[in-house]
């Protein structure tokens, strides 16, 4: 596509237009996916509680998220008189921007990443750790008690689980020998007996896959770790003072982050766009379909956990992060690197 535009519009402008279209091809379906994810979440949650969930707007209630969006769009934006106006409005912008840009390096198929950079994994880690700024700015700028407490809690929680996510990712990087997400996906081809694709099927890396899934829930402040918006103690958390689309952007950002974490789970441990079994006919199905199926499966797990697991207490959350995940993931770096030295690299040294 880039070549086509470049022959007609000149090199620089052709590239610009082609890249812009590619970005919109990622960003717009992502926003549609977020709307559908919110709908799916409500439906799954309702089904597990033997309720019906949204079923009035459109067929099966499919248009519910769009109706909510329109309603929110037409509402008044309330900025509390004691809030810092600039920072107050900046916070949702940051949250949503960060939720979008993480997708720039996710490979949707062979050579189908917007930016195929060699430190892709480091980039996603950096992008997801910036998310804490939106939350803490929202809580502080609101100048209100509950948002402030929620923001401090959220910052400490996200930061704690980022440490263990960092060490878990090192195990993956060690095993794949690369930071490039496309290379990591290809390295998973035929991981077990040459026929099963995915690091997660490897007994040595499976515990890391489980820990990454749980850490991803804590990092995105999803139930059972949704202490930042624990409604029984903190009203609505850092979003308490927000209204209209500024409020909705936090929701969109949160679901965008959840989907990004599902995509990362799929990409890092379960073969990304590769089919689960390395069997030629399965490669006729486009890679993006496999990735989509895997992301949906992980999103279902996120929903399922939200519907069934009671919320953690804050001290339990911190204990899990610092006293269990951190030592275990640190030990796994030692284990994986030692195993690699003995089997793969050490022989020649």
């Amino acid at each position, binding site marked *: 596509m880039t070549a086509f535009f470049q022959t007609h519009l000149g090199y620089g402008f052709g590239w610009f237009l082609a*890249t*812009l279209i*590619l*970005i919109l091809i990622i*960003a717009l379906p992502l926003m549609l996916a977020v709307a559908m994810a919110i709908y799916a979440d409500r439906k799954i949650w309702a089904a597990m509680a033997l309720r019906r969930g949204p079923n009035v707007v459109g067929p099966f209630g499919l248009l519910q998220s769009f109706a909510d969006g329109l309603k929110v*769009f*037409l*509402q*008044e*934006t309330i*900025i*509390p*008189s004691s809030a810092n106006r600039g920072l107050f409005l900046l916070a*949702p*912008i940051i949250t*949503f921007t960060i939720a*979008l*840009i993480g997708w720039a*390096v996710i490979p949707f198929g062979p050579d189908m990443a*917007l*930016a*195929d*950079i*060699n430190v892709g994994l480091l980039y996603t880690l950096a992008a997801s750790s910036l998310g804490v700024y939106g939350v803490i700015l929202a809580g502080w700028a609101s*100048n*209100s*008690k*509950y948002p402030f*407490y929620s923001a*401090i*809690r959220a*910052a*400490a929680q996200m*930061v*704690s689980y980022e*440490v263990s996510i*960092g060490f878990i990712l*090192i195990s993956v*990087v*060690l095993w794949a020998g690369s930071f490039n997400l496309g290379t990591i996906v290809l390295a998973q081809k035929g991981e077990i007996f040459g026929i099963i694709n995915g690091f997660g099927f490897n007994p040595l890396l499976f515990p890391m896959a489980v820990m990454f899934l749980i850490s991803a829930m804590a990092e995105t402040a999803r139930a059972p770790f949704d202490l930042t918006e624990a409604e029984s103690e903190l009203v609505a958390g850092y979003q*308490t003072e927000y209204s*209209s*689309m500024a409020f909705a*952007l936090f929701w969109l950002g949160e679901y965008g982050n959840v989907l990004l974490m599902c995509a990362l789970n799929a990409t890092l441990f379960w073969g990304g766009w590769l089919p689960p079994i390395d069997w030629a006919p399965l490669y006729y199905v486009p890679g993006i379909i496999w990735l989509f199926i895997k992301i949906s499966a992980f999103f279902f797990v996120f929903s399922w956990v939200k519907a069934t697991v009671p919320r953690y207490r*804050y*001290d339990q959350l*911190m204990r899990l992060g*610092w*006293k269990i995940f*951190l*030592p275990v993931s*640190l030990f796994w*770096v*030692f284990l994986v*690197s030692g195993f*690699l*030295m003995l089997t*793969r*690299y050490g022989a020649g*040294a």
Partner: protein
Amino acid sequence: MVDLSQYLPILLFLGVAIVLSTAFVVLPMVAAQFTGANKPNPDKLAEYECGFPAFEDSRAQFDVRFYLVAILFIIFDLEAAFLYPWAVSLKEIGWTGWLAMMTFLAELVLGFVYAWKKGALEWE
């Protein structure tokens, strides 16, 4: 040599994302002016408190343990940052590099055990 041009799409994506999210915040505010939804009054603009006027500054003292967590985070995140280049070059640096990093990790584990014993990780 790093080819910086491969980061250009990311810069463009960042621009698009900022424009999109800014539009989402600003457009409803503009729309509310025209639809008449924008009707502020002092009670509505007051900060939220459970049904009575707030009586103390919300940016008050908070627990020092949150601060402690932030400091510990910096130590361990830097440690992880050291591990990244090591992880991709393990093949080249061999046993020497592996042993050097394990020594470094062992020293950090000592620090971690100290923080644990001192009670820096306790949230009763």
